[in-house]
């Protein structure tokens, strides 16, 4: 079942011609000419479309929280920089018109005065493709004044980022969009829907979330909800990477396949290299707690994964086989977060740096046995109790994203750590 990826089978999926030949803008016409904004929002609420950016909040419910005010904004989050996440990258390069159509539908539903698509700065081709799609939309009357003669007008502006993972966090993104350093804002207010861009109510939605809207408008919220099960409705893009034979982005109906299917299935990852075995996998991006072979039969569903102690997050599955060093993997993840910390909160800024250094010395064979307790203590300072979902002492959840990899690696691969320390080198090197 393909929804957001339906057009990707065509090599020219990014062109206006292919877009229009495959039902492009049908949903936008339907929304603007036959539906009220409330009716569009009601379909999205019925669909139970969970946000695809990481937190998994229902899009319809978020829209409902929009504070009543004269001016409101829509901001599409295309900053995608969570390690091993590359699904939005695919969507912006390969189906940019669908994104623009979805953004225009969202802008109509919430009555946005202006919509901004914020794209990661490193997506040079994506920036070209999305700008082209925006230009096309203006040219054919699908954007700007009086769209398709409906009386509804809106502009979309494309904004490039400039290389800062933290700007994916929605309040940091808004700061960046206002021309500032990407410092996450102090909560409350918890949602930009209350105070967002320039202090006005703002809906921030992920690229994949928004790309689902045309299908939902065309086919109805019930049809979307009939796919998947429980709270996990519709399909999702899963980005599979690491030590697996066929890494890639796979769109699957939610809850209908398991991690085993995704990693080993013939139509998906096709398993590991010959004579290798799986030691661990990360189910939802670098910040999610690790899973192990005993979790392989869990279905790809938001609540199913949460109940097992991790998260589906950004839908990125990272596979590690027995040739890799778990200490090194955990270190590399911690190093990323330490480097990307914006520095506002002491536990994140200092804790991340310390953990990075201690992990490095263990991996290089200079560690001490006390380092394991020290690491766990530092984790506890960043996220008290090192529980899942994480407790927070920081402004945003970048800080609490550091402990999961460290605590998983220590509890599961303690012997590996000890071997590094005893032998004074990495046993996998």
């Amino acid at each position, binding site marked *: 079942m393909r929804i957001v990826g339906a057009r990707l089978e065509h090599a020219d999926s990014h062109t206006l011609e292919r877009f229009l030949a495959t039902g492009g803008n049908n949903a936008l016409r339907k929304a603007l000419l036959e539906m009220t904004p409330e009716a569009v929002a009601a379909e999205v609420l019925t669909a139970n479309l969970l946000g695809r950016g990481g937190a998994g909040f229902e899009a319809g419910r978020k829209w409902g929280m929009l504070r009543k005010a004269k001016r409101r904004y829509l901001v599409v989050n295309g900053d995608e920089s969570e390690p*091993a996440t590359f699904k939005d990258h695919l969507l912006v390069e390969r189906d940019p018109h669908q994104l623009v159509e979805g953004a225009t539908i969202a802008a109509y539903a919430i009555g946005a005065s202006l919509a901004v698509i914020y794209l990661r700065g490193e997506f*040079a081709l994506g920036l070209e493709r999305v700008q082209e799609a925006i230009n096309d939309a203006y040219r054919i009357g699908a954007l700007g004044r009086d769209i398709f003669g409906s009386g509804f007008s*809106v502009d979309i502006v494309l904004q490039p980022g400039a290389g800062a993972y933290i700007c994916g966090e929605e309040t940091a993104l808004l700061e960046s969009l206002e*021309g500032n350093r990407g410092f996450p804002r102090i909560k409350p207010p918890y949602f930009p829907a209350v105070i967002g861009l320039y202090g006005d109510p703002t809906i921030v939605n992920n690229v994949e979330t928004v790309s689902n809207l045309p299908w939902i408008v065309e086919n109805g919220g019930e049809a979307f909800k009939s796919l998947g099960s429980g709270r996990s409705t519709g399909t999702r893009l899963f980005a599979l990477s690491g030590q697996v034979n066929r890494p890639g982005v796979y769109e699957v109906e939610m809850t209908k396949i398991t991690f085993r299917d995704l990693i080993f299935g013939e139509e998906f990852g096709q398993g590991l290299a010959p004579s290798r075995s799986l030691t661990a996998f990360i189910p939802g991006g670098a910040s999610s707690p690790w899973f192990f072979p005993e979790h392989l039969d869990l279905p790809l569903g938001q609540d199913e994964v949460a109940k097992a102690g991790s998260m589906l997050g950004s839908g990125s599955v990272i596979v590690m086989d027995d040739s890799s060093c778990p200490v090194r993997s955990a270190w590399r993840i911690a190093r990323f977060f330490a480097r990307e910390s914006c520095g506002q909160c002491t536990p994140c800024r200092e804790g991340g740096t310390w953990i990075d250094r201690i992990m490095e010395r263990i991996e290089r064979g200079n560690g001490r046995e006390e380092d394991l307790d020290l690491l766990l203590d530092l984790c506890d300072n960043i996220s008290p109790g090192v529980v899942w979902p994480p407790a927070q002492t920081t402004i945003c959840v970048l800080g609490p994203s550091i402990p999961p990899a460290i605590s998983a690696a220590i509890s599961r691969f303690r012997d590996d750590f000890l071997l590094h320390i005893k032998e004074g080198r990495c046993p996998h090197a």
Partner: protein
Amino acid sequence: MGRFEGELLVRAEKVAGLYPDPRSAIIPLCHLAQEQDGYVTEEAIAHIAELVGATGAEVQGTASFYDMFKFEPVGEYVIGVCTNISCMLRGGYGLLEAASSTLGVPPGETTPDGMFTLEEVECVAHCDKAPAVQINYRYFGPVDSEGFAELVGQLRSGELDGQIPKHGTLGRVLRDAPPLIPVEEIDAERARQDGEREARAASREV
């Protein structure tokens, strides 16, 4: 050099006019400065400040937060080798070492001829093509040591000129659309639409 001139000045003024608050143009304008000069010069910062109504220190303060902005000359080609988790699991560090020996400079430095700057970068969202490389933000992968040497050869010979513009040029597609709808016009339209919305809600209640 430095201040925007000619066609770039026209573009800069357009960009500054795209937002309810011109300060929102700071990041796009820093990219434009890099497109002109390869890096963000002090003169460009001063000019951006004038265009958006901020101080130079404010523009500098914003720009210095972001990894993509360079404040001194870099190579014509900035080559990023990803060593983050998915690339690491597929030889990213080995590739970084090979890249370093091919170019003869450690990560973070520029070759003496000013052609290449090598960088170790974080995940560039190309993880299914690991290990991934970006050259002036154009994607390659999976790349091995021989493949890397070959790429460098092609860059030197100019074979990739059409595909990879010089450092600083991001999207080559410019906004081609009517001027933004004045916000007062949108406000009036939304006020009318909100009125209709409330009327519909009221008629449902009856």
